[in-house]
């Protein structure tokens, strides 16, 4: 059967497929939105003026990608993308804990973004041939943009871990912090085998995860000071993917809706 005739259109989804797809799209959208928001908090604060400009483009890309995913949900659920982005309470959010953490220093920002973009690339690879055509179409475009993000953060990561002194110490610390959230980041959720069997995802989730760790370890494995280290996983008490979030997200959401709350009847 050819790919086209096998494709899934929004109106062909079964109830269960619909539910699983919305759950998955929400994870994607919330990840991109909250990370883009965190990135935007770096405006005017980056270590160099040139990087400030470059980083802002990445922030805009992430929010732009979030808008795309929210629009897909809007199509399925009939709720506006702006509502989905701004007005949902924290417990309905499915972003990973990694992206909602406060920015911290530049080392944490780089490590976090690199890890996120690495996972995002693997995730996008698993969707570009999705049977759900709107998703396949959009992820193909996004993948082209995300390519630049990944090489950008790879470069920063290598440079900052590769040099000695304060930079490497900070990077090691940042890696330990960020790695605690990896389980949550890589969690596709209850429907992962369904998404695969319906062809909404086209990669074995277990393979996606092992690909992630092998690429990540390759990046620092050759640095003598780091090659002996082991990733320490911690089972988080709360799970972002299940709607259990930190205070950091609650404060961000509170801040985000200030204008909207000022006059709920208004158009801005």
């Amino acid at each position, binding site marked *: 059967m050819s790919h086209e005739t096998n494709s899934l259109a929004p109106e062909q989804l079964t109830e269960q497929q619909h539910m699983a797809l919305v759950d998955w799209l929400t994870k994607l959208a919330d990840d991109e939105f909250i990370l883009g928001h965190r990135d935007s908090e770096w405006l005017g604060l980056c270590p160099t003026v040139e990087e400030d400009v470059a980083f802002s483009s990445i922030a*805009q*890309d992430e929010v*732009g*990608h979030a*808008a*795309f995913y929210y629009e897909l949900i809007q199509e399925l659920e009939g709720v506006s993308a702006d509502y989905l982005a701004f007005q949902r309470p924290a417990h309905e959010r499915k972003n990973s804990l990694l992206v909602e953490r406060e920015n911290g220093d530049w080392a944490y920002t780089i490590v976090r973004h690199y890890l996120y973009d690495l996972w995002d690339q693997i995730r996008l690879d698993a969707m570009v041939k999705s049977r759900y055509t709107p998703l396949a179409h959009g992820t193909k*475009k*996004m993948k*082209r*943009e995300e*390519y*630049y993000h990944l090489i950008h953060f790879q470069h920063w990561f290598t440079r900052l871990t590769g040099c000695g002194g304060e930079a490497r110490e900070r990077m090691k610390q940042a890696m330990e912090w960020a790695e605690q959230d990896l389980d949550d980041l890589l969690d596709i959720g209850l429907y992962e085998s369904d998404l695969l069997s319906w062809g909404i995802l086209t990669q074995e989730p277990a393979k996606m995860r092992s690909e992630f760790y092998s690429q990540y370890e390759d990046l620092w494995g050759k640095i003598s000071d780091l090659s002996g280290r082991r990733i320490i996983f911690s089972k988080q008490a709360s799970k972002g993917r299940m709607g259990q979030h930190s205070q950091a997200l609650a404060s961000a959401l509170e801040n985000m809706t200030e204008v909207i709350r000022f006059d709920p009847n208004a158009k801005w």
Partner: protein
Amino acid sequence: MEKEMQTEPSYIYEVFVQRDHLDPMMHVGSLLAPTDELALQLARENFTRREQIIQIWVVQRTHVHSSAEADFHAREMDRSYREVSGYTENGRLWRMFKEKEITLEEIVRYVEQKKQSKDDLRREGNHES
């Protein structure tokens, strides 16, 4: 074999010219030359013998670091939010207030005038309410 050994090694130089003080440098082509200085002299005759320019740069190609993959320049998603073309409704909205939008070109023309024309002043002045 001896013949080859006597040949000076040549390098590829990329050539850039600037036509006016307000123009950016522009790439116009490349040439072969053995030294920076000769490259400059050759560029002068090979690229600018017919036109008035104010500056030439020659850069050895190996000193140019360029993007390797097309995806590096990917601009796929909607970016109209950051372009003038994303705000075409402004004209219509201003008309609701019996005014029109201002364009940058209009401002530049207006500021560069040595003196405002009387007409301009009268028109703007007449808005007093």
